[in-house]
């Protein structure tokens, strides 16, 4: 390992090399971690649905904010010019 340090490589690169070397040296140990993740497939579906819902919700809010900025439109005095500005924004 000291050879690697003396070689002038940065720490992240050294870390990556060590990880790869360990994986090649003892592949069975890494593979034995067997998380058996397919057992939680239904929970995975729920998680994906949750993330999907949040993404769609967020995208919807972003789009809504871009098409008609509420904080600008809510000022009655500035509304006419801001409405025009919002219309330009969409093009």
């Amino acid at each position, binding site marked *: 390992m000291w050879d690697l340090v003396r070689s002038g490589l940065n720490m992240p690169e050294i870390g990556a090399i060590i990880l790869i070397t360990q994986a090649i040296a003892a592949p069975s140990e890494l593979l034995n971690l067997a998380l058996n993740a397919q*057992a939680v497939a239904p929970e995975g579906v729920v998680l994906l649905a949750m993330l999907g819902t949040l993404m769609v919700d967020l995208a919807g809010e972003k789009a809504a904010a871009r098409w008609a900025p509420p904080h600008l439109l809510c000022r009655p005095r500035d509304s006419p010019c801001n409405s025009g500005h919002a219309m330009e924004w969409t093009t």
Partner: protein
Amino acid sequence: MQWNGPLESSFLGAFIADNLAIAFRAVIALSTLFSLLISWRYAEQSGSPVGEYAAILLAATLGAMLLCGATDLVSVFVSLETLSVASYLLAGYMKRDARSSEAALKYLLVGSAAAAVFLYGASLLYGISGTTNLQVIGVALINSPTPLAALALVFVLATVAFKIAAVPFHQWTPDVYEGSPTPVVAFLSVGSKAAGFALALRLLVGCFSAFDSQWKLLFTVLAVLSMTLGNVVALAQTSMKRMLAYSSIGQAGFVMIGLVCGTKEGFASMILYMAAYLFMNLGAFACIILFSLRTGSDRIADYAGLYQKDPLITLGLSLCLLSLGGIPPMLGFFGKIYLFFAGWADHQYLLVIVGLVTSVISIYYYISVIKMMVVKEPHEASEVVKGYPSIQWKTIGLPPLRVALVACVLVTAVGGILSNPLFQWANNTVIGTPLLQQAIATGGQTTLG
């Protein structure tokens, strides 16, 4: 795909997808699906963001589903908190409604205390056994059943009792149910409770087999108190949500009969009743939501004469309430009779007699609501019903609500007659779960009492 498949624990022994976990996860997933369907219009009408609501509900579902298969103290706590934190958020989702915020705060405070009690029990268990794996802890407790382990049992049991809202750990239920948005109450009353019973099976049957007679005695007391108090106090309620809150406490008492039996029939009847409870309770809540969307009222007295104006809600609510009361040939009747049969076969005479008496009491308050809706003459109808607004079924969110209502009512009404597949499913769940099979085989041989 996982049903009766080869059993292999996941995440280094923190989770297992046995038949028990699959069955309870199915109940929770279905309760979420129906809750989402009945929530849409409610959220739209109240002006709350639907997307965030759905995401939080799915987070609660995720926690509840993971809790069903958790086999390690750490994974139990993480999933329990995922469910709890999401539930607090859901309870306070109507930010502009002071009652909703109050419900969330109460739920948060009591829930945090319950979580702390669980952590204390879990730390005692870790101290005794030196591990967080439930199976290994169970073996350690059999080898050295110390008084400290009995103390850990009390703490863990308190957490389970809080989650299933068993008396005397039920105080949060009426207030939270009354203040929370109605679709959230629907989910909490089924999904959260199912997760609580799955946790009870994992912890008490799987981990505390050395204290079999002790926890069964404690649960007998809790079941008697829950059935009695839940059903008697429900008689005096004037709010529909509050009545169903006390009814759910009583229903938890009925399910506990199966847990106390510890036999194949006991466990199977528990699972069957939870599945039946899913449909009849969510069906009732769908009707209540539809009524409150149209009238804004939740009072039982306001349902007077509803049959004249809305036969769909009247019929649906009547069938679901009759099923909750255990009237044949509804699904609830078969669920209840199976529970009582299992209790009688296991010589739990006290529980069965209390269950029968309180069932009769529950029929009284359920039928009072039906009588209110059906028997009243048009001139006796409530002011709310007299001014009952017409409904546009094409309004956003109403078609899903109608689908959920019809599906739940249909299963509640017809499911009883065609309940054989459900019985088979419940029995196969018990047969295909090594944890339950082991508990049935030992049958108290390792107990101290």
